[in-house]
């Protein structure tokens, strides 16, 4: 029977807030556009631009048209040249703004990385305590250091001796200190965090320069950013479209010459730049950086962009029951009195005996008695001549001795044994109730008293797992997105089934051992499914490594963090759901802007082609359906629209396309309508409006 395992509650600062916030966040501060300008200008370097084929073509075109504008100077050609350069600059600006947001975070992290000194143990024997003082940067793998209250932990490692409270706010942003202790799943510490109390011995597990903080800085700065598989594929597609349009534009000149209407380089470059997918080409890297940034804002560190994309593809989520699906601990849900006992009397006794029980289960009994039976919680000092018996893991009971009454409450076996010692017959009174509660998946706690040497069993408290608010709806959403949820629990199958049904998961794995988990993951993967899971213990490490997306809790062991490809700084297992959503949102934003970019071309053709050739073939003026003022204003309007749309879409690229979980079909319909149809229509309007303005400018015919 599982009862009363003394364990500090898992801190859950984010769970409800994050669930309410959903994916989103990350608005654009207009000031950032200005401050990022120098960075954007620096990126004009062709060596940097060459990494982005689409924008590189624009830059080359801008160079060419600048040269020709010198030889045949006009207001028109210089206006086009300026806007071509602005197009390149705007693309760089998008990337610079995205990177700029990470830089601010990196600066904060760097402060935590200020050079510290370490007290390294000379002998491997930790007890001797002889230390030498060295620079933290000189620490190597396997070194052992002593850190005492007030000191900064010099490097990533595991606590091998002692227990301490640690302030990890430098990394997690969470000000409440956390407990780190040797052994178990809470042994890892991060360099740059501060010990607040006690003394610990830490064994260093990271090489200098490769510590958690180093990786995090690199990550938020985008320095180590590598293109993700889908991004690479999209880049290939964009590059090939660019080649097609280069061919279409370059071969247009001989046709134009044949038609007796040779075109200037400036006009041809303008046409090319309008056709190649500059919108998505300009925003692609900003979308990727912003996606990683959104994860960081959710306090999740992904070790690679690949993992973030994989998160969007996940088919199966393995979720630990405790902390993810249910609240961390079981809670009292009902009092079941023994025959002949008033329920109020049971509630009163249960509350009295739980006053000294600081475990979450004990607190929940006090709360239930108060909320259901109006029994005010009494402080320890309020009851005269009372002696409180605190809960211990050995006795598995808590209680109170007052006025000659001894009241005890605790694990059914322990309390029933105590009753028998005092001559009572607990099985007759509550045996059936205890069995029924166990069978339903709950935990029975027995309440009994001894008055004047006579033992009475008063009844049973029904403890049960409380499924988190709203989790059922989240799972229903997951199902609509095509994601299967599997609950992992150490409970027996009966208990597991009851909770699985209440939470609405698709499947459960009961009495799960680490081997069972790996076997389940492998089975899913053999069917071609991608699996995501969370874990914190060392025995989770193999499963975390096997899973396609393994999210390690920051509170977990360094083995777990090493094995996973993401770390959740809040140690909140529910976060997995947000991670999946962020992964999807990243892909959706890319797809939507690609569609938008290509759809834009239709209107640009209708602006530019009649402008180029209506002079020689008047019939082509019928294609000028926007009734643009003149050829020059038409071409300039298209170029300016093309440049401005980049700036206009930077906020969307950074924020990501709105994402609401729904089926693939309805999501496609919505996005196709907004970004496909919208992408065809909006430039017609935009170009027409720009034309109305431009036609007023003197010097433009």
């Amino acid at each position, binding site marked *: 029977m599982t009862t009363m395992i003394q364990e500090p509650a898992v801190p859950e600062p984010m769970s409800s807030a994050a669930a309410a916030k959903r994916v989103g966040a990350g608005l654009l501060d207009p000031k950032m556009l200005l401050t990022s300008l120098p960075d954007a200008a620096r990126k004009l370097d062709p060596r940097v631009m060459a990494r982005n084929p689409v924008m590189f073509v624009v830059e080359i075109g801008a160079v060419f048209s600048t040269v020709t504008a010198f030889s045949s100077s006009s207001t028109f050609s210089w206006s086009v040249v300026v806007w071509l350069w602005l197009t390149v600059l705007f693309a760089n600006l998008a990337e610079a703004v995205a990177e700029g947001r990470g830089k601010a975070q990196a600066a904060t992290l760097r402060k935590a990385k200020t050079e510290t000194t370490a007290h390294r143990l000379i002998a491997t024997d930790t007890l001797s305590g002889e230390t030498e003082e060295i620079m933290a940067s000189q620490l190597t793998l396997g070194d052992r250091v002593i850190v005492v209250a007030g000191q900064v932990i010099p490097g990533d490692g595991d606590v091998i001796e002692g227990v301490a409270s640690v302030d990890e706010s430098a990394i997690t942003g969470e000000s409440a200190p956390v407990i780190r202790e040797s052994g178990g799943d809470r042994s890892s510490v991060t360099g740059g965090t501060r010990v607040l109390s006690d003394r610990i011995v830490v064994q260093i597990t990271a090489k200098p320069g490769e510590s958690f903080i180093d990786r995090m800085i690199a990550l938020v700065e985008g320095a180590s950013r590598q293109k993700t598989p889908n991004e690479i594929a999209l880049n290939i597609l964009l590059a090939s479209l660019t080649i097609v349009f280069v061919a279409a534009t370059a071969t247009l000149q001989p046709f134009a010459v044949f038609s007796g209407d040779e075109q200037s380089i400036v006009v041809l470059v303008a046409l090319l730049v309008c056709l190649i997918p500059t919108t998505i080409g300009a925003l692609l890297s900003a979308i990727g950086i912003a996606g990683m940034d959104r994860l960081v804002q959710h306090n999740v560190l992904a070790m690679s962009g690949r993992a973030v994309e994989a998160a969007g593809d996940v088919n199966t989520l393995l979720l630990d029951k405790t902390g993810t699906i249910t609240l961390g601990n079981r809670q009292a849900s009902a009092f079941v009195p023994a025959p002949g006992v008033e329920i109020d009397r049971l509630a009163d006794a249960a509350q009295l005996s739980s006053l000294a029980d600081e475990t979450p289960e004990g607190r929940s009994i006090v709360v239930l008695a108060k909320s259901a039976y109006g029994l005010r919680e009494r402080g320890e000092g309020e009851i005269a001549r009372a002696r409180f018996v605190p809960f211990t893991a050995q006795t598995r009971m808590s209680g109170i001795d007052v006025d000659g009454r001894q009241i005890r409450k605790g694990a059914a076996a322990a309390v029933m044994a105590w009753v028998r010692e005092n001559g009572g017959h607990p099985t007759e009174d509550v045996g059936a109730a205890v069995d029924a509660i166990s069978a339903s998946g709950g935990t029975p706690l027995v309440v009994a008293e001894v008055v004047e040497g006579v033992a009475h069993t008063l009844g049973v408290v029904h403890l049960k797992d409380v499924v988190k608010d709203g989790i059922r709806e989240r799972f229903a959403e997951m199902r609509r997105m095509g994601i299967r949820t599997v609950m992992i629990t150490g409970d027996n199958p009966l208990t597991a089934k009851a909770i699985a049904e209440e939470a609405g998961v698709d499947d459960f794995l009961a009495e799960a051992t680490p081997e069972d988990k790996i076997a389940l993951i492998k089975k899913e993967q053999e069917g071609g499914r991608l699996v995501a899971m969370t874990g914190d213990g060392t025995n989770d490490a193999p499963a975390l490594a096997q899973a396609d997306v393994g999210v390690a809790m920051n509170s977990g062991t360094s083995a777990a963090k090493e094995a996973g490809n993401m770390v959740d700084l809040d140690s909140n297992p529910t976060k997995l759901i947000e991670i999946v959503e962020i992964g999807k949102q990243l892909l959706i934003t890319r797809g939507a802007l690609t569609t938008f970019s*290509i759809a834009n071309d239709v209107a640009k053709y209708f602006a530019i082609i009649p402008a180029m050739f209506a002079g020689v073939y008047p019939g082509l003026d019928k294609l000028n359906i926007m009734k643009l003022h003149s050829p020059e204003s038409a071409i300039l309007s298209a170029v300016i629209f093309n440049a401005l749309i980049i700036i206009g879409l930077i906020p969307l690229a950074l924020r990501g396309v709105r994402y609401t979980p729904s089926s693939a079909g309805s999501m496609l319909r919505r*996005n196709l309508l907004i970004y496909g149809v919208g992408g065809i229509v909006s430039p017609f309007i935009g170009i027409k409006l720009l034309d109305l303005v431009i036609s007023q400018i003197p010097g433009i015919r």
Partner: protein
Amino acid sequence: MSDTTAGLLQAGALIAALALCWRPLGDYMARVVTSEKDLRVERGIYRVIGVDSKSDQRWSVYAASVVAFAFVGVVVLYVIQRVQAHLPLSLGFKGVDPALAFNTAASFVTNTNWQAYSGESTMGHVAQMAGLAVQNFISAAVGIAVAVALIRGFVRSRSDRLGNFWVDTIRIIIRVLLPLSVLAAIALILMGAIQNFSTGTDVTTLLGHHQTITGGPVASQEAIKELGTNGGGFYNANSAHPFENPTALSNWFENFLLLLIPVALTRTFGTMVGDRRQGIALVSVMAALWGTLVVAVTTFEVHHHGTALQAAGAAMEGKETRFGEWASALFAVSTTGTSTGAVNSFHSSFTGLGGGALILNMGLGEISPGGVGSGIYGILVLAIMTVFVAGLMVGRTPEYLHKKITGREIKLVSLYILTMPVIVLVGTGIAMSFATPRASMLNAGPHGLSEVLYSFMSATNNNGSAFAGLSANTPFYNVALGIAMLLGRILPMLFVLGLAGSLGQQQKIPKTPGTLPTHGPLFIGMLIGVAVIVAGLTFFPVLALGPLAEGL
């Protein structure tokens, strides 16, 4: 019966006949390429050419077989033409010029059947039958084999084998193309097409001139010409010639034949991948493109507004009176949409916009419904591209038919999509830049540009129809178009087989509610949009200077 009623009836009957044959023929072809058993005659052939019919090839071996076979085909055909004077039944024709022989060899091996020569005055019976007619079967079978290999890439899981090229090709010839063309030839003979081994009949015309009328095995070549979407006519006038295509009925039947296999292959595809809705989706896209273009071209032809045309009462220049505007437009769209290239009217004489629509139809990449085999693999490549963009928009790594579309697949798809437009545009660009190729144009101005554009579009897409008006039998065009045909055929096939290999090695992934459905109207619409927008954006500028400048 008015022209409109007759036209609508013909189109309606065409769709009904195709719908009727779609299922049995499609399923039959699926059985042919998936069957474990060899026919006795096939076993004999395998023994002669030394092929183990049970051995499966990797994509690279399959591709190497395709290339080697094409190379041998070009060489053999080239030699036959060069030494034709020494062959029996040469009808007294001399050996063909090197450039023309290369062009013709490339043309027939690539299923293009562009004819820079005039059939009845250049080729003897051996060249026509042992050379050209044989390639009519082989090139068609190769196209289907490559398509089948791609479908196997979707069907198979974690396999680097795509089937056996030789087995696929031979089975398709023996079990599909031969029986169907025998039936079709008999039907055509019944409808009045000629079939003989005449060495020419001398007649005296009404004006007293002497004329030699060439006869020959016309009906048999006509059958495979349409069935295999080849298009190489026995006579220069092709299906406008009364010996090839005598009546309105034979015209309708030929139109049916050229659409038959490309359309039925969508069923083969659906059956092989185990989800027939996928085949229906693809055939819907093809039908929508074909139907729209039929309506457009018919409208342009019937509601012409040229003064001369209105004075004449109909845009009948270059059209046969026994077919009329409706059947000519219907045939023109079918032939340009199937990479057949048979013509029953002169596309050059179509109205500016009508001719432009025919060029655009080829510019779609031959998917409406495309050539035998090339149509289905062409539209599958576009479907993958569509799935990629659509898949991103639903937030998953895009997947099509249980296979992930990753960078590798997109690279091959991009190369495929890139190849045709680049060859067409660069080829046309080169031709328009030099005086000699420009001198071949019959017309100045936009119509001249359309003539040259049409020739490169037709050659690269392995269509083979000519716009007429362009004197294409010059060294420049023979060589340039020959290269365009070879590159336009072989390169896409290599990319398709690479794609098949890449897909086949992938593990199949399960379908979930998060998987983008690729059979619904939404996807069909998006695929149509992608096909039109990609082709439209690529060719809009040059079309503007050619047909649009002429027609608007």
